[in-house]
């Protein structure tokens, strides 16, 4: 009942605003002229909202981009929908090797259509200038090549069957052979062993390293030579008649290993980053500061704008402008500032991701539409907060002040 009355009251207010004398757009034109006339404050207000919007979108985009990197390897192997690993594994970067026999055990589990080995380890690569760089080494199944990303810029998966053959990701090529145009046939020292680049791959940006070498599983073992147990993961595809849940439960029960669906493993890897790094706090702090600074700057400037125009509002009130009309005028001024500021900030954020995305260090960072919409809500909240105090001033202004000198 209370809610219904409130809604009816709000509708009444809107009807009143729309139907009272002077309700055409003419008073709004005067309001806009007042706003645009004070260019310094108008620009300051727009910059305040734009700054907050830019900060929210840019920081959230980078944050989500970083989180998505935590599961980049999983995204690059869409063929497999289950990852099997040691039960102690918490993320993609800390791997406890499995015995080679585990592959056969997994293959024997009911509901498994196929299972292939997957190797992942860090390797040291000597760049063209003699510098040592840390690189990620991925070994994919020798026969099926499951585990190699599907987008080849140069070369093909078949080329990886050659001796000492490796594929390198596009961004990694730029790091190892700085300034060189991407090409095939370059040789490189990988863990002190010769490797020949036979393919260039476009892959998902990783969290820890921007250089990734892809090769056959058997070749990868030769590069690392870390002993008996070197199987990092077993990649599994479920049979059509089984669900992921059924198969993961079967593998867990029959092998004692941990099987996770790709989405579960991805979420686990992302959660690990959230729980064990200061990244969320760091980005959260910057975003909060952006909002606080936005509210403060826009609030103060809008109040200052209204304060300086208070006498003019009082004149309009004395001349016969109603409170409803004045509310409409101030709300319009605030809305215009909000829309222009939000648009400017969003445009700046989009440009940032467009241009920064060309830098390999920022590859994969993006502006999610959900964040763009959410930041619009934040901009609206900033404007609403800023205009509440200003509206109060206008509403309660004594029109008799027009007679004061």
């Amino acid at each position, binding site marked *: 009942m209370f809610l219904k009355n409130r809604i009816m009251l709000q509708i009444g207010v809107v009807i009143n605003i729309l139907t*009272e*004398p*002077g*309700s*055409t757009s*003419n*008073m709004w*034109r*005067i309001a806009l*002229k*007042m706003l*645009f*006339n*004070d260019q310094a404050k108008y620009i300051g207000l727009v910059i305040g909202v734009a700054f907050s919007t830019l900060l929210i979108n840019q920081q959230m985009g980078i944050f989500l981009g970083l989180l998505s990197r935590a599961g980049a390897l999983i995204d690059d192997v869409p063929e497999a929908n289950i990852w099997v690993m040691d039960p102690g594994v918490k993320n993609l970067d800390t791997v406890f090797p499995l015995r080679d026999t585990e592959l056969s055990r997994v293959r024997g589990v009911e509901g498994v259509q196929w299972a292939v080995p997957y190797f992942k380890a860090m390797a040291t690569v000597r760049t063209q200038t003699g510098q040592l760089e840390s690189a990620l080494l991925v070994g994919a199944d020798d026969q099926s090549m499951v585990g190699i990303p599907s987008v080849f810029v140069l070369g093909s998966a078949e080329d990886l069957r050659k001796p000492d053959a490796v594929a390198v990701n596009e961004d990694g090529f730029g790091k190892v052979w700085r300034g060189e145009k991407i090409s095939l046939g370059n040789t490189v020292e990988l863990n002190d062993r010769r490797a020949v680049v036979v393919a260039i791959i476009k892959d998902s940006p990783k969290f820890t390293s921007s250089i990734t070498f892809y090769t056959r599983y058997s070749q990868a073992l030769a590069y690392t030579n870390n002993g008996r147990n070197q199987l990092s993961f077993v990649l599994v595809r479920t049979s059509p008649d089984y669900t992921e849940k059924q198969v993961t439960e079967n593998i867990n029960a029959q092998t004692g290993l941990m099987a996770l669906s790709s989405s579960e493993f991805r979420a686990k890897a992302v959660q690990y980053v959230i729980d064990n790094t200061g990244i969320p706090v760091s980005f959260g702090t910057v975003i909060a500061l952006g909002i606080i600074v936005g509210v403060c700057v826009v609030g103060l400037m809008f109040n200052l704008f209204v304060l300086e125009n208070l*006498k*003019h509002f009082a*004149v*309009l*009130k*004395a*001349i*016969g*402008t*109603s409170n409803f*009309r004045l509310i409409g005028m101030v709300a319009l001024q605030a809305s215009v500032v909000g829309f222009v500021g939000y648009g400017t900030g969003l445009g700046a954020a989009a440009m940032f991701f467009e241009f920064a995305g060309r830098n390999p260090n920022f590859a994969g960072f993006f502006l999610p539409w959900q964040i763009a919409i959410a930041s619009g809500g934040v901009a609206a909240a900033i404007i609403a907060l800023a205009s509440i105090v200003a509206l109060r001033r206008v509403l309660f202004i*004594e*029109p*008799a002040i*027009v*007679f*004061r*000198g």
Partner: protein
Amino acid sequence: MSMPQTHDQDPSTNVLSEQRTLAVQCRGVIKEFGSGQARIRVLRGIDLDIFAGETTFLVGPSGCGKTTLISVIAGLLRPNEGTVSLFGEMTSQMRGGALVHFRAINLGFVFQQFNLLPALNAAENAAVPLVVQGMSLSKAVRKASELLERLEMGKHKNKYPNQLSGGQQQRIAVARALVHNPRLVICDEPTASLDAQTGHAVMEMLQELASAPDRAVIIVTHDSRIYSFADRIATMSDGQITSVKTKQESQLTSDGNH
């Protein structure tokens, strides 16, 4: 709307007057500010009649309550006690929208500091009361421009307040006060910020345009140079009307004192 009252006796002066339309009638108007021990009574039972077709000056020392009285008459302040009626309408009992609407139709204001909107040019400033009443901005500006031509301000109609002299700004303010043909024009120190010559010109304009038989003008002023424009001078002191005299009576008193 009730018919305007007529009055044949001026209660403030106890002088019999010819039958005239009563523009403003204040009866026992008391206005207080503050509360508790800090409460100050600014108007102490004002009885005042102002007639249509006359320019009435409200004079008195600073702080005597002149500005408060015109604010109460204009409906910008509500009296604590007493009644105010304008052209027969009991405005002191009007509430909210009705009072705002009445003010928009019937009142025009000229302020000491002009109070023009800096974002609007001269013609747009003069057009504001028409826009407030619902007229389109372009039509209102056309009508205001005609009035500015009559005030010899036509060539300045596109200029902004900061491009105009004090005298020119006050002429725009006068145009704004008159553009919607209000029945009562209230001026607060309209010549205080102007030199003698410009002040004189502004007063001539006000007298010519505002003192029609169906209109009344109230002018609060300290500027004795313009007393000659008054039809009647009401003197205030300490929140009360101490005398209301015609121009002739004021001149006689002044001559006697000399």
